[in-house]
């Protein structure tokens, strides 16, 4: 049982990372319908930024994390300006920005590869290597840190969508772009904000996961797929769905590795299998979007 | 008396708590032009979409040439000989005018995929191209046969919609607000084309807002309000009908 609880904490931490990536997708998909496959690479960039500021330049952690997030917000808006806005304004079909972002995925990855090389780079743990015991639950400081930060981010996202006017604008655009524009909502500002936010959240995910796995130029695609699986399982309609999906994927993955009588390499296949099953059987995810209030 | 080509009986459709169409009956014969009118929200578009197969009904029956077409998918309805146009033109952007019209003839192609791969279908293709060319001439787009659809004006795009629908050799064409967005001259041209279509024996059902366009064109009119039929008759009869005048809020000028 103790074993399971420890696993639960570690799985929950992984689940939070996937949930954050899923949230990043969600922030961009909802108002624009654009699936940004480059979120994984954004996470990777966040991890490398963390390496630079925290390992190489040894900035204090709070300053470093704030700087990484600020940088990612800028990167997200820049990406939107370059690869998305011109296409949307020219009336191109949604396929076009999605493919352009695929191209950007490759650009991000190769740029980092050129700049840093193929080796992994260490990122420091904010709270050190220690273990914490909270009642029956035990896990590393990092795991609990990840849980805390993720909960804070999701709480913030939930509040944003439920309680603020800006959040309602996002919802409005998500439901009906044309109507929202007619009501005076600035579509391009919403789009820029959604990309900035998506990049910020993705970068944060990269920063949080990198102490465990090191910053590496290939870490993007697996994260992108796991995050997307989380999104599909949880459902695009609700913020909480992203976190729920992430936790489900992580638990399925780690429980399979620990308890199922199959080779550990197959564990990588679990999120993929889940993704395919959900896409083909229940594409709208587990949580339904809120019903429109008449 | 022979059964009408299109028979609608007791048609009903609800969206959540809202009843869009209730207990609707009407008939349409070959070569007839029937107008479906009513104020906004009266249920015209819903009725149109039910016949075209965009969604299923909650009750009633739609029979075409004796067969029930209720609940069939749009492509199956096209196969039965019912074609439609779209209010906001929907051309196939990556193709020429001729190819757009040829897509309309999709249900008329007989050769299987095996024959296509083996290369033995070319005479059918040539024949269909000839017919498509004739249709393009018929609607008046003759010189634009090989033009990219992106270069067409709105009015020309509307004519393309019609040629494309005709390519399916329909027995019934559904027109979704054919005059919407057109200049007076363009609308007159469309009205002429529609009359020519009816003369060839094709049944025409059109929904329309613009009374000046519809009333001279339609032979019979069904008026809807709040999802139900409130009047039916010739344009002159319907114009003077008290319920109809009421529905349009006494706006005699609109009628």
């Amino acid at each position, binding site marked *: 049982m103790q074993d399971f609880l420890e696993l639960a904490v570690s799985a929950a931490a992984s689940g939070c990372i996937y949930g954050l990536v899923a949230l990043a997708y969600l922030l961009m998909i909802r108002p624009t319908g654009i699936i940004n496959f480059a979120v994984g690479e954004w996470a990777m960039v966040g991890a490398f930024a963390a390496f630079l500021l925290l390992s190489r330049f040894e900035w204090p952690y709070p300053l470093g994390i704030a700087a990484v997030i600020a940088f990612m917000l800028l990167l997200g808006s820049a990406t939107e300006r370059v690869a998305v806005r011109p296409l949307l304004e020219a009336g191109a079909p949604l*396929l076009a920005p999605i493919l352009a972002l*695929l191209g950007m995925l490759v650009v991000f990855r190769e740029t980092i590869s050129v700049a840093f090389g193929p080796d992994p780079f260490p990122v420091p743990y904010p709270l050190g290597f220690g273990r914490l015991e909270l009642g029956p639950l035990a896990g590393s400081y990092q795991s609990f840190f990840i849980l805390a930060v993720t909960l804070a981010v999701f709480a913030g996202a939930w509040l944003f969508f439920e309680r603020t006017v800006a959040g309602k604008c996002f919802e409005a655009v998500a439901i009906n772009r044309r109507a929202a524009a007619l009501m005076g909502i600035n579509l391009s500002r919403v789009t820029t904000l959604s990309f900035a936010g998506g990049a910020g959240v993705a970068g944060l995910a990269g920063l949080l996961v990198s102490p465990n796995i090191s910053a590496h130029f290939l870490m993007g695609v697996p994260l992108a797929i796991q995050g997307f699986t989380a999104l599909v399982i949880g459902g695009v309609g609700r913020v909480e769905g992203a976190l729920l999906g992430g936790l489900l994927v992580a638990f399925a993955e780690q429980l399979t590795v620990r308890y199922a009588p199959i080779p550990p390499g197959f564990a990588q296949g679990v999120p993929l299998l889940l993704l*395919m099953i959900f896409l083909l059987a229940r594409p709208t995810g587990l949580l339904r979007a809120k019903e429109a209030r008449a | 008396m022979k059964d009408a080509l299109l028979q609608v009986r007791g048609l009903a459709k609800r969206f959540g708590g809202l009843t869009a169409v209730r207990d609707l009956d009407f008939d349409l014969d070959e070569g007839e032009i029937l107008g479906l009118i009513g104020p906004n929200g009266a249920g015209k578009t819903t009725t149109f979409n039910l016949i075209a197969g965009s969604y299923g009904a909650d009750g009633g029956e739609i029979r075409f040439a004796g067969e029930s077409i209720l609940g069939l998918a749009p492509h199956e309805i096209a196969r039965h000989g019912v074609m439609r146009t779209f209010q906001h033109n929907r051309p196939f952007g990556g193709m020429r005018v001729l190819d757009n019209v040829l897509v309309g003839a999709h249900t008329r192609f007989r050769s299987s995929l095996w024959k296509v791969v083996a290369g033995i279908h070319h005479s059918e293709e040539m024949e269909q191209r000839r017919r498509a060319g004739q249709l393009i001439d018929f609607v008046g787009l003759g010189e634009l046969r090989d033009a990219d659809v992106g270069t067409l004006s709105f009015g020309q795009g509307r004519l393309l919609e019609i040629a494309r629908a005709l390519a399916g050799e329909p027995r019934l064409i559904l027109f979704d607000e054919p005059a919407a967005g057109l200049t007076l001259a363009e609308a007159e041209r469309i009205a002429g084309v529609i009359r020519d279509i009816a003369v060839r024996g094709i049944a025409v059902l059109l929904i329309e807002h613009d009374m000046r366009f519809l009333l001279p064109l339609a032979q019979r009119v069904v008026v809807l309000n709040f999802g139900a039929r409130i009047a039916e008759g010739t344009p002159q009869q319907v114009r003077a009908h008290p319920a109809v005048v009421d529905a349009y809020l006494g706006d005699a000028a609109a009628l």
Partner: protein
Amino acid sequence: MSSAARWLGAAVVLSGAAFFLGDYHNDVYRKLLLWVTLALSYNFLFGVCGQIAFSHFAFYGIGAYAVVILLFQVGLPLPLAVVLGVALCIVLALAVAIPSTRLEGFYLALATLALAQLFIVVLNEGGALTGGTGGIASYSLPDVFGMRITGPRYTAVIVLLLLGTLGVLWRLDRSWFGRACRAVRDNPEAAAAMGVNVARTKVIVFTLTSALAGVAGMVYAFVDNTVNPPIFGLDNAFLLLFMVIVGGAGRHAGAVVGAVALYLLPFWLHPIVGHHHVLVFGVLVVAAILLQPRGLIGVYDWVRKS
């Protein structure tokens, strides 16, 4: 010159070239022909029918591994191995396509992305059957009708594959079926209203092109006489997509130009950017989408007009 003569002429020229190129250039040439073949079939799926999928290279791999495993691990005769391999690709393609095509949006893209990754995982973990991370090597094509087909003579097989693929796709493209595919790409709702069975069209195109990729894979298996997981990974799937976009999606010439350009470019870029030619490709793709969505073929047309 009649059409049959043209095809024969092309076959002779393309195969004949193999006898004049040295070993090294022959290897590049054969791989190039295979990439062109894949680009042609992928172009039909993506450019003509508008379906994004990342599984094309996975089916290439499934065909390759299937024929090798069935021939050398299971011991089947060559014709049976080929037929079963194709059948496997068809069954898998149907299993993915039939549910996905019911749905709107990019579900097919995502399901195929997952399929592609899953295939690599299965290969890596397949133990003795798939040869694991090292793959299977050092086998060779059994004699066909008593003939040993290797080296430049095998190039003729690849040319046959290329021209056969092109022939099938060409005929489909200019028929009612090709038009129906484009209609599905441009406006699925209008296509349905015209009588096109949109879901069935998508399934047919996906299954057909995946099977063509599988057959290409079978031919590939005997080019290097080795198959291993990294060859069939996502990187190559992206590269294929990039080839079609940069070359000009929707036209056979575009697929050919894109494949030739992006396959040969790394050789010329090597002195400048080393292994990072992929960066150039990424930039090219973004540039293509932003500036000239019709790709290099579009640029060529535009230059010709002015």
